[in-house]
């Protein structure tokens, strides 16, 4: 078991190395010149060249990659070309909104999707099942920004029930915080709900046909208890797995959702940085997102043993 954990953790190192190399190379060969942006509209070409040199953008590839990796290993992601702030500081400033949005979406999605999937499986073949499946397909088909704009139009502009945009820090109070995040979380959650509901239903269908469920039924165990105690517990592994894999959806969706709802999170930081060619920030953020994604999936792997005693390593 312990050896397995170590092996699993070590296995993430080459993955992260590939990500690092990929991200660095990608941006190394990218066009677009931060020096020109910094210099502003009135600068002469000579000014631009001098700024480029002072930023070290004129040095060779390997030198810059080596230096970059070394610094990251030392916890230094570099300094943003534009703001002159350390990238770690900029990321720290942006973590709370994104984390809030993701956690809320996750809670919302799981608490809606799992019951939906369970009920659909239970009422397999009825109109309830069809509604759930129909919703799932819709969830996959309507892009997150469309959902976002529709929600904001109805609930914020027409009805004026919720704020249109923005973010209130958690420390300002739970309800102001929640109020700003409800619409983005629903918009972002749509596709995630669809994904989880679908896999829950599928797994439950499979589990419900197993012998031990029939046995339980024969023994007269209540329907609710069968569904949520016996079946759901055994369906947990694929569901949890898909929640982990769906993190990629969540991260990608957050980039768009934050733009629509003007949430000052990591997603918007990424888009701003890419549009401005702020290399150190792009590298830091993409690396961070990938790291989180790998980490979450690693944790889920390790959690399997809890959910499913049949799995032994």
């Amino acid at each position, binding site marked *: 078991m312990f050896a397995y954990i170590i092996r699993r953790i070590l296995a993430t190192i080459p993955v992260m190395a590939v990500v690092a190399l990929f991200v660095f190379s990608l941006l190394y060969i990218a*066009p*677009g*010149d*931060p*020096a*020109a*942006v*910094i*210099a*502003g*509209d*009135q*600068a*002469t*070409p000579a*000014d*631009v060249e001098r*700024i480029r*040199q*002072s930023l070290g953008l004129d040095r060779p590839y390997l030198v810059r990659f080596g230096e970059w990796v070394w610094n990251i290993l030392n916890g230094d992601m570099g300094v*943003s070309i*534009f*703001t*002159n*702030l350390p990238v770690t500081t*900029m990321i720290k*400033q*942006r973590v709370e909104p994104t984390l809030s949005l993701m956690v809320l979406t996750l809670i919302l999605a799981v608490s*809606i999707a799992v019951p939906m999937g369970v009920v659909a499986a239970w009422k397999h073949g009825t109109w309830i099942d069809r509604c759930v499946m129909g919703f799932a397909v819709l969830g996959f088909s309507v892009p997150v920004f469309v959902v976002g704009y529709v929600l904001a139009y109805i609930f*914020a*502009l027409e009805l*004026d*029930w*919720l*704020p*249109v*945009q*923005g973010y*209130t820090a958690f420390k*300002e*109070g*739970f*309800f*102001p915080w*929640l*109020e*700003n995040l*409800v619409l983005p979380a*629903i918009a972002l959650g749509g596709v995630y709900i669809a994904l989880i509901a679908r896999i829950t239903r599928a797994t439950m269908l499979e589990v419900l046909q197993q012998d031990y469920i029939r046995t339980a039924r024969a023994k007269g165990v209540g329907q609710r208890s069968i569904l949520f105690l016996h079946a759901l517990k055994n369906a947990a592994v694929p569901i949890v797995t898909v929640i982990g894999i769906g993190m990629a959806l969540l991260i990608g969706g957050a980039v768009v959702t934050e*733009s*629509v*709802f*003007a949430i*000052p999170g990591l997603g*918007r*930081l990424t888009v*701003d940085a890419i*549009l*401005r*060619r702020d290399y150190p920030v792009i590298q830091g953020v993409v690396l961070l997102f990938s790291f989180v994604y790998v980490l979450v999936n690693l944790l889920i792997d390790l959690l399997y043993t809890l959910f499913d005693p049949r799995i032994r390593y």
Partner: protein
Amino acid sequence: MDRRTLIKAGAGLGLAGHFGLSAPAYSQGAAARTLKFVPQANLANFDPIWGTQYVVRNAAALVWDTLFGFDEHLVPKPQMAEGASVSADGLTWTIKLRAGLKFHDGSTVNAKDVVASLTRWSARDSMGQMIKAIQQELVAVDDLTVRWVLKRPYPKMLMALGKNSTPMAFIMPERIAKTDPFKQIDEYIGSGPMRFVKDEWVPGAKAVFAKFADYKPRQEPNSWLSGGKHIMVDRIEWIVMPDPATASAALQNGEVDWWENPITDLVPQLRRNRNVRVDIADPLGNIGTFRMNHLTTPFNSVKARQAVLAALSQEDYMRALVGDDNALWKHCPGFFTPGTPLYTEEGGDLLKGPRNMDLAKRLLAESGYAGTPVTCVVAQDQPITKAQGDVTADLLKRIGFNVDYVATDWGTTGQRRAMKNPVGQGGWSMFHSWHAGADCINPAVYIACRANGDAAWFGWPNIPAVETAVTEWFEAPNLDAEKAAIRNLNRAGMENVTYAPTGFFLQYQAWRSNVSGVVKGPLPFFWGVSKT
């Protein structure tokens, strides 16, 4: 059903009914002491000498002060300076500082700080560079006196020190001003009326300024960058909102107090809200530009450039930029800001009257254009360049150019336009930009109107007649002579098409009705603005 019941009933969250509009973190009184402002763009960096975007300048004007400052008539008035005198031969400038000025770190403003600041500024500013080129010495005579000795007279000295075009001659503490002019500073300490709260700065989202208690405003009434800069609030928060729709909603809901540049299409909606006031932001407006590369085909031929002028409809560009509101734009068949003393339409006939597509096609044919691609580099992240680019693509196609539309961002445009290579090897044919009207009032602050070849602004026009006129202007003894020089400049520039102006346009600003003291100007002036 009101908001509260919805949250309880709907969404199925089963939350208690705490949902007020947004429980304010400050009490009513404190809220009135914080002004929330939506700037035109993100404050991505904060060194007003190193980075010269308008948004940086606007924020810097709060934190740093200048020796002189333009008033609303564009006359430089003493600000940090007590006064200045120049020797009879025009070579020695002596600037006296006001006593008792303090930086935000508590230290006193000293002549040494001024010397270091002006040295750094003059390495980057176009007027500063002219002064630096003829500089004999720049020294601190005593704690409050600076002497700038020149080899040749420079009559526009006070304009250089007080102008509002970027980079402005901001005064920083000596240790900060010693930073290489091509490296960013990382301490934001000035002697201006507000302190920059670096801890709360979230680039891309928020920048916070707090009132500087030890600021000593001048006694004169304030006028733009001059006079007493009295701050009426304790805090100013800049909230960055890249999406105009959300900014508009936020202003209407009272989540922010002042929006620097609402887009015109949203203005009717803002006007309908009785809690919102809307007015012109900057009477000096902006001039849209269609900048051609004089080094590469096809625009190395004057005929091809004239073809563009003959067909270019400023109305199309301006409507795309400002919408249906005719009060917001003007035809501008000249290079200088309409309404300012030096404005002239001399030589701009090709831009006047009905558009002549036949003439354009004929001129294009005469230029010997053989269908080579015209690389249009259009930044999509700036509404002004994007709207112009769409019109241009359509225009050039109709004239008969083979358009290669390169959609990019402002950063890439910045890089691309610096390339002198031929098209096809990384070069370019044209790009769009715009100049603030305040920067187009005379050739000293307006490097885009110059045509000194390699040294000129991107596009590198080489038109000796323009440069002759620039020299005439610098040496002009009076306004009439200046006007005559500018007429020559405008004519030569138009006939040879230094660049094509796409029109003169104004932008709106909007604020909540409980905010008072907002004035029109080339940048948002926060002094005198109060909130109830």
